């Protein structure tokens, strides 16, 4: 059985589990939606303020929702020993990690698209020529976040204080990804000279892709240490 088939099987199963456990889907969509609404109310009615804050609001909402989603991705399986069964089956650890990563990434990317559409409409933001680059930023930013979240969620899955430990452990590591994602989004959405100037997003996007590659290699290589007991 090729590793790619195994990766896709794990991803398909996890994505299906994610969709079935509606509690998580509802919680993440509702939570991120509330975050966007509250922050936009707090900033007041000035359209310039809202546009300036839009990239930050987008990524704050996504980051918090992503933590909830990642933590839950293991809890569904731990209760009845499904994760243990997965670990004693003949699947390479790296394939388990990449499969789970794909499912988490897909969820977060779709949520990101939904939030982006809501923010663009609510804040009346011009998309201009930056649409494809914005999608690329969203894809690479959510991938970087999911790489870290999937890894640390496995690390904390068996701990009693996992809900509080997961963000404490992962946020310091994920900060570079979030900063690069916010800056890239800002150059594509924000007000001022940078608005609609895709050229300025390039370096930040390259940085994001660099982070993604580095995290992918490191997390895949050491995932087996995290799940061994």
């Amino acid at each position, binding site marked *: *059985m090729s590793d790619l*088939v*195994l990766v896709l*099987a794990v991803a398909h*199963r996890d994505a*299906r*589990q994610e969709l*079935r*456990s509606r509690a998580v889907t509802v919680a993440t969509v509702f939570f991120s939606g509330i975050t966007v609404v509250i922050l936009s109310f707090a900033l007041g009615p000035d359209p310039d303020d809202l546009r300036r804050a839009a990239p930050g609001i987008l990524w704050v909402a996504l980051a918090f929702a992503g933590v909830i989603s990642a933590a839950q991705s293991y809890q*569904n*399986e731990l*209760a*009845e*020993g*499904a994760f*243990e*069964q997965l*670990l*004693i*089956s*003949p*699947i*390479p650890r790296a394939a388990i990690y990449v499969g789970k990563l794909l499912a988490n990434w897909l969820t977060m990317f779709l949520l990101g698209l939904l939030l982006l559409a809501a923010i663009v409409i609510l804040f009346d933001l011009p998309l201009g020529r930056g649409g494809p680059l914005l999608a690329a930023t969203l894809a690479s930013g959510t991938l970087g976040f999911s790489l870290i979240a999937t890894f640390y969620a496995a690390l904390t899955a068996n701990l009693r204080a996992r809900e509080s430990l997961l963000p404490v452990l992962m946020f310091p590591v994920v900060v570079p990804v979030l900063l690069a994602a916010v800056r890239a989004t800002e150059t594509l959405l924000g007000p001022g000279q940078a608005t609609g100037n895709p050229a300025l997003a390039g370096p930040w996007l390259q940085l994001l892709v660099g982070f993604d590659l580095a995290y992918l290699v490191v997390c895949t290589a050491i995932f087996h240490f995290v799940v*061994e*007991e």
Partner: protein
Amino acid sequence: MAPAIELRSLYRRYGRNFVLADITLTVEAGRTVLLKGANGAGKTTLLRVLATRLRPSRGAGRIFGADLAREAQSVRRRVAYLSVLGGHSPTLTARENLHFAATIYGSPATVVDRSLASVGLGGVGDRTVRTFSSGMKKRLGVARLLLAPSDLWLLDEPYAALDEEGKGLIDDLLTDAQARGKTVIMASHALERCGRFAEATLELEGGRLRRADPEVQHV
């Protein structure tokens, strides 16, 4: 031919406590062995070590000649584990759980329905596992066991939670395993029932193998 199981002074620790201590044991291929002992004696831990879920803290072990720690992936290809909890994804249906297992083991998808029917779950294949009783989950675990092309079965309380018909299924499973030359290690408190199939009995006491009879270490 390498023995099915070969353990040499194997220890397993949780925190500061040794749950398994100085386990030395050889089980030849094709044997059916009953593992007995009081609650907390270390039966499940020993099965989990053999299934490569837990690494030995000290000592060494081999399954069909493959090292438990260094060649765990080779071991996993030859071992199937029936846990007490069942080990299924509760949000997926019985059929989806088995399809996933079939993909992992490289079995054709057509065997899924046959496996479900063979454990009496043919009519509830599209129900999510969280709606199942403990006995139904155990039956589903048996169906998954049938999908795995493994040589060593590790059964943790195989008769627990099952009704008489379900227990009959386990009887048939063990008869079939013996006919096909599989090695079976079953941890159980159902001593009489398991005793009908067991060719040898091992007893764990406080994490150690009882050594009343020197032959007990080589079955």
